[in-house]
């Protein structure tokens, strides 16, 4: 029996080729309440949700220089929810005037055997952390305000230690490739949060020490 034909061209349409638009900033814990208050007013009228997640970052070292990074994340507050596997590409080097960081993003829901599966595939866990905070929504925009804690003993999410006395704030939008209208909306939303917080595009490659 013949094998069915396999398309050689990669799939570029539908929801597989999404871009993430990202703006980041941080607030000191002392200013957190005011920020949450303002976000509650600005964002869609819903009860703001808190979350606690545990993220593991897996690396696949190839022969070339840069390792392949995959992020596996699970909810500690909703243990039965599926895992979330995410691939983030390199930031798009577009025009400098674009207000947000744009990078390719692939999101996949996975079952609870994800870490074992990645290990079998040859990935190795590089680091893990626990993050908890609030998540807001305004239309397609997602605002996440969270603190990041390092995991002291690998695998033990009870024993964590805050990394800093500030909260990380991320404003993100997922949109299909080609749609560039979101960065304007993000910028105007970020304007409304000043001077409480300055959200800007931070190139992750420039953060390595």
């Amino acid at each position, binding site marked *: 029996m013949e094998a069915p034909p396999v398309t050689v061209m990669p799939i570029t349409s539908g929801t597989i080729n*999404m871009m993430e638009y990202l703006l980041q900033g941080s607030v000191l814990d002392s200013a957190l309440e*005011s920020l949450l*208050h303002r976000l509650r007013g600005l964002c*869609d009228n*819903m009860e703001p*949700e808190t*979350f606690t*997640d545990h*993220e593991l970052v897996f690396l696949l070292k190839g022969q070339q220089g840069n390792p392949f990074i995959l*992020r596996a*994340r*699970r*909810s500690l*507050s*909703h243990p039965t*929810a*599926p*895992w*979330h596997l*995410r691939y983030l590409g390199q930031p798009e080097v577009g025009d400098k005037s674009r207000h947000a960081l744009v990078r390719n993003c692939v*999101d*996949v*829901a*996975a*079952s*609870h055997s994800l870490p074992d599966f990645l290990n079998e595939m040859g990935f190795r866990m590089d680091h893990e952390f626990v*993050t908890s*905070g609030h*998540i807001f*929504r305004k239309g*397609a925009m*997602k605002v*996440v305000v*969270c603190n990041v804690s390092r995991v002291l003993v690998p695998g033990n999410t009870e024993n964590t230690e805050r990394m800093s006395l500030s909260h990380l704030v991320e404003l993100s939008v*997922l949109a299909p490739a080609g749609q560039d209208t979101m960065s304007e909306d993000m910028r105007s939303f970020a304007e409304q949060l000043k001077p409480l917080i300055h959200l800007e595009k931070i190139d992750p490659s420039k953060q390595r020490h």
Partner: protein
Amino acid sequence: LISKKKSLATAAQLLLKGAEKLSKSVAENQENRRQRDFNAELLRLRSQWKLRKVGDKILGDLSYRSAGTQPWHVKLEAAQNVLLCKEIFAQLSREAVQIKSQIPHIVVKNQIISQPFPGQIADDDIRVQQLSSVVMPHPASAPFGHKRLRLAGPMAYDKAEISNLQQSEGLLEKIIKQAKHIFLRSRTARTIDSLASRIEDPQIQAHWSNINDVYESSVKVLITSHGYEQICKSIQLQLNIGVEQIRVVHRDGRVITLSHQEQELQDFLLSQMSQHQVHAVQQLAKVMGWHVLSFSNHVGLGPVESIGNASAITVASPNGEYAISVRNGPESGCKVLVQFPRNQIKDLPKSDVVQDTKWNQLRGPHKEVNWSKMEGRNFVYKMELLMAALTPCL
């Protein structure tokens, strides 16, 4: 006497005590009610506290300074309504752009123009209640979306399970469907009513059902002849009016689907009315003792009708002397012919073949009846009179 006085005095004292107690309790009740009213008032007032923003703080004003500011309250309600309407409108505009439909929707400023049927304009200014309920993703990094649909991958759902999860239809689609149904229903009613007022014979009756659905209504259409409702009731139609189509269930079991075109329904009803006349002759023949020789709902002879088909029937008198042939079409109207026995025809053409006198008892040529000159208020009445005239009384 003294003992009587004493006993009266004690009785009086008891009564007085009782009265005192009663009046005390009534007074207490009143006092309690006043207290409760006060607390209720206080509660109501506290629910109306004013908020003011000073710098980056928000102050609440609980004072009674602004107690009873009715216009402020009204303004706030109006502002909230505006925001809700804007949100709903935004949702509908999004759907208008997203959903695929044959006729594109036009979103202009604060109106969404959607044409339910071609050739119609309906301005939809939305006032419907709808609240969007979205579940936040857990973990937080996951994209927004249907919570259960995210399980489709990890739980390996098959096609049937996924299609169960898909949201059925958006708000705009629902509104459009309802609008289409309402238009169709009012057009159907208009068609039936215009026919009823235009055509007196036969009569068309519509009995609309009280129990309807937002997407479906039904009406029972009866075609009758005045004075002969019990005899001639062959044509009874149940019309189920949907969103884009009308389904007609005939009394004889046939199911016909009509489109939303008004003309189609009108033509259909006209053809049914034409058939009714011929059916009526058939029923009348049974009652009058006449024999049905032939009957056809769709004759293949004679001029072609532009609407439907002509129907025809031939009935013979009880003793066989006379026969009446009727051809009725929606466009061509009715044609009635009577067949006389040969011995009643003057100037019968002599034939070499038919020579015996016994053949003179048989029916011979046909003669057309001047139907418009016949007495009778409607077709069936005229037919009854004709039949009666041709049935000799013994």
